[in-house]
């Protein structure tokens, strides 16, 4: 079982302190996620932007340090910050999931371009993988990059359920250059640009993410914006991105657990001295140990899909259970009398479909069993 070392404990404590700022803005962003004008200068959101940016791209006058140098540090920070509000975290400008993809697949030049394009602190990014008809079956995606006779590529297709897609100015879009699985590639796309359209979907929860649908009708993609050209063919596209998904799943699991802890803490605040939280508290403590162990495992074995899948499957389910428990613990009408709790009940359900539904995760967890050869 992982014990946090002093730097990670310091990171945990700093993020825990910063979470209160997110909490104070939570209901406002939930009500109107498109209106972020009063929130982007939040000290916590500024810290998250800086800390999720690699050190070499950080503004030297701002935060010094990062929490993206390991999956474990991401998990520690995400858990604490989501305890403030997960919706605010997903509403923030900055590298977010697209940054994880660029870090994994981008050349040094591409990383410089990407981080330079968002250095103003006012630029949203997006990560566009899912398609409406294909869901989690990424290998069946239909969005395509056709060679452009004038150079580079033309992007055709549509993506759905893309966080901050309609307001993002820089994004990573996955598309195929041919029919084989190896032909699925990722490209940096800058917006607005001719042929690009995006609009936000009205979602039930985690509304800060401004989940959107995007369409591409011949969007020009310069050749140098295609990620992974410097990598072996097997690591350039969807297979190379699998490490990205492992990190994302840990981060989403951490956010789910952060909301669950918030709900537990809220109940304890409302019912001081009540011992009815003990079983929930014990489960949450065990879940945090599982999260830290899984994050550390991703750092040690970044290609292993099973461990992060177990973490996300359990923690997202637990978060739904705990918010439901909290609603019951605060009695009749609790979801109307405690708007944050009602919001958390909606928010935690979003983690289910982000970067792998439960059924997809179950397939990853049992892949080794399903493909095992019988012993004679």
């Amino acid at each position: 079982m992982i014990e946090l070392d002093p730097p990670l404990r310091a990171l945990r404590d700093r993020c825990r302190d910063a979470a209160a700022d997110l909490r104070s803005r939570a209901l406002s962003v939930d009500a109107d996620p498109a209106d972020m004008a009063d929130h982007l200068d939040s000290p916590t959101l500024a810290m998250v932007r800086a800390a999720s940016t690699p050190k070499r791209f950080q503004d030297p006058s701002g935060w010094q340090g990062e929490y993206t140098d390991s999956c474990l540090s991401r998990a520690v920070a995400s858990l604490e910050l989501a305890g403030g509000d997960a919706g605010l975290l997903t509403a923030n400008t900055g590298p977010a999931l697209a940054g994880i993809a660029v870090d994994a697949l981008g050349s040094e030049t591409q990383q410089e371009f990407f981080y330079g394009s968002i250095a103003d602190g006012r630029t949203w990014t997006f990560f566009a993988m899912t398609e409406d008809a294909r869901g989690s079956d990424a290998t069946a995606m239909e969005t395509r990059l056709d060679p452009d006779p004038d150079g580079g590529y033309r992007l055709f297709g549509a993506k759905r359920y893309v966080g901050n897609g309609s307001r993002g100015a820089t994004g990573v879009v996955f598309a195929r250059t041919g029919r084989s699985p190896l032909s699925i590639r990722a490209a940096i796309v800058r917006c607005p640009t001719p042929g690009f359209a995006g609009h936000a979907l009205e979602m039930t929860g985690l509304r800060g993410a401004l989940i959107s649908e995007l369409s591409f009708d011949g969007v020009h993609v310069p050749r140098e914006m295609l990620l992974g050209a410097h990598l072996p063919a097997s690591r350039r596209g969807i297979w190379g991105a699998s490490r990205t998904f492992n990190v994302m799943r840990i981060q989403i699991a951490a956010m789910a657990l952060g909301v669950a802890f918030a709900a537990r803490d809220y109940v304890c605040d409302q019912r001081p001295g009540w011992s009815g939280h003990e079983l929930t508290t014990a489960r949450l403590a065990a879940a945090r140990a599982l999260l830290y162990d899984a994050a550390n495992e991703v750092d040690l074995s970044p290609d292993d899909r099973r461990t992060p899948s177990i973490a996300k499957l359990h923690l997202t389910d637990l978060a739904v259970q705990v918010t439901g428990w909290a609603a019951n613990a605060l009695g009749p009408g609790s979801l109307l009398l405690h708007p944050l709790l009602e919001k958390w009940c909606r928010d935690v359900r979003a983690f289910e479909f982000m970067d792998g539904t439960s059924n997809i995760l179950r397939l990853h967890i049992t892949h080794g069993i399903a493909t095992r050869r019988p012993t004679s």
Partner: protein
Amino acid sequence: MRDMIDECEQTAYSAGLAAGLAVALAEAPGITPPGRVAAVPTAALPPGWAITPASTVGHRMAGQEGISFATTGGPIGPVDGQLTQFCAHLGAVRLGVTRRLLEWAVEYLSGRTVGGEPTISKQLVLGVLADVQTAVEAARRSLQVSGTVPAAVVDVHDRVTTLDWEAAKLLGASGYVAGTPTRSAYVAQLTANCWLPREGVS
């Protein structure tokens, strides 16, 4: 009791949550919630009740389902036989909503493929559908047989909340878009949250 269970479920199944709730409330004149707020059909607000301002996203979602949250200004209602019976009827309403959600999920999954095969044919999916259908049947019998037992009625509601979530998960992200039957199921959960007494909590 059994006829009302059937009527509440069928009304919600065919006409939606608000219609089902109206049938259940009509059978319980003068009932008051065990907490400070009640969920009622907007179109059939009981006399003397005042709708609370729609200040949250949850309120908005409820409004789109024809449900409002209201207060009487009077004392909190007693946890008695009438409340238990009403909550049993409300449980039946929720079963009707669950069946609508399940049908939506089947229709949605029937139109999709994974790896070239219909998603609906996948064992993981069929297993969930079977489990939810089985649990709906079991929950209905619980209401019919034990609808006067407070703990049994609360248990049915908690099971329905779980069933709705299991069914909603089959829809992936599409079930999270406002306006789908998952919204009805969520608002039904909010409705039950107002009316269900919880042991040791007031």
